[in-house]
């Protein structure tokens, strides 16, 4: 079984080591036949404007952030036949090329891990309380939420909207 010493969710300013996290997630668990991971990184551009993002500040809602992601992992475990899951999200000041988010999932076979990993990212993008503020040559700007992220969550049959005026839950 996965070690109980490793939390499922970490919100931190520090960077993370994907290899070490994956090793810990599958350690001593011979049921595991598949590990799927996703890492999101900071880009220096939006919509084809290279070099326009000098840095990015990540704000979150301490307490709710952890609780909401724990609930998403519970939902993933209900929905998919997976063993373990680990989510790390960085906050504070980040630079282009920095790692920002990691999701890793273990299962017996690849299909469940691939699906659960994508499900967790789709859920997190629209339902976890994080906000990005970009520093650009024109000044600081809060990043707009994307309708395409709501559509990504909708494909799992979850009708929670982030971008609409009256977001239903």
């Amino acid at each position, binding site marked *: 079984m996965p070690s109980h010493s490793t939390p499922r969710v970490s919100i931190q300013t520090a960077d993370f080591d994907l290899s070490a996290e994956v090793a810990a997630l599958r350690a001593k668990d011979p049921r595991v036949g598949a590990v799927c991971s996703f890492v*999101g990184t900071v880009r220096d551009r939006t919509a084809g404007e290279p070099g326009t993002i000098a840095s990015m500040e*990540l*704000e*979150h*809602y301490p*307490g*709710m952030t952890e*609780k*909401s992601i724990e609930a998403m992992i519970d939902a993933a475990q209900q929905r998919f036949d997976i063993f373990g899951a680990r989510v790390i*999200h960085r906050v504070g000041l980040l630079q282009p090329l920095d790692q*920002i*988010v990691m999701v890793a999932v273990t299962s017996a076979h690849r299909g469940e891990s691939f699906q659960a990993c994508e499900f967790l*990212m789709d859920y*997190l*993008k*629209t*339902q*976890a*309380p*994080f*906000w*990005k*503020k970009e520093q650009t040559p024109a000044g600081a700007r*809060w*990043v*707009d*939420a994307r309708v395409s*992220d709501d559509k990504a969550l909708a494909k799992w049959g979850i009708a*929670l909207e*982030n*971008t*609409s*005026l*009256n*977001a*239903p*839950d």
Partner: protein
Amino acid sequence: MKVTVKYFASIRETIGVGSEQRETQASSLAALRDELIALGGAHAESLARGRAVRLALNQVMCDESAELVEGAEVAFFPPVTGG
């Protein structure tokens, strides 16, 4: 009753504080939002109807019909942009 109201991101910046204690008679989050809008100024600007504002009650996302209870922690924030 007393409630704690939290603001995040652009709403926090506009209002100028991240958290405030409020005495309210509002029975729902919609009524609390109306009370805050009625304060005018930055509250009215950032929480105005017609803006995409998301809400949480006791750290769970909810809609405005949610019932307000003594000691509740209510949060107002823009659509989230993590990941």
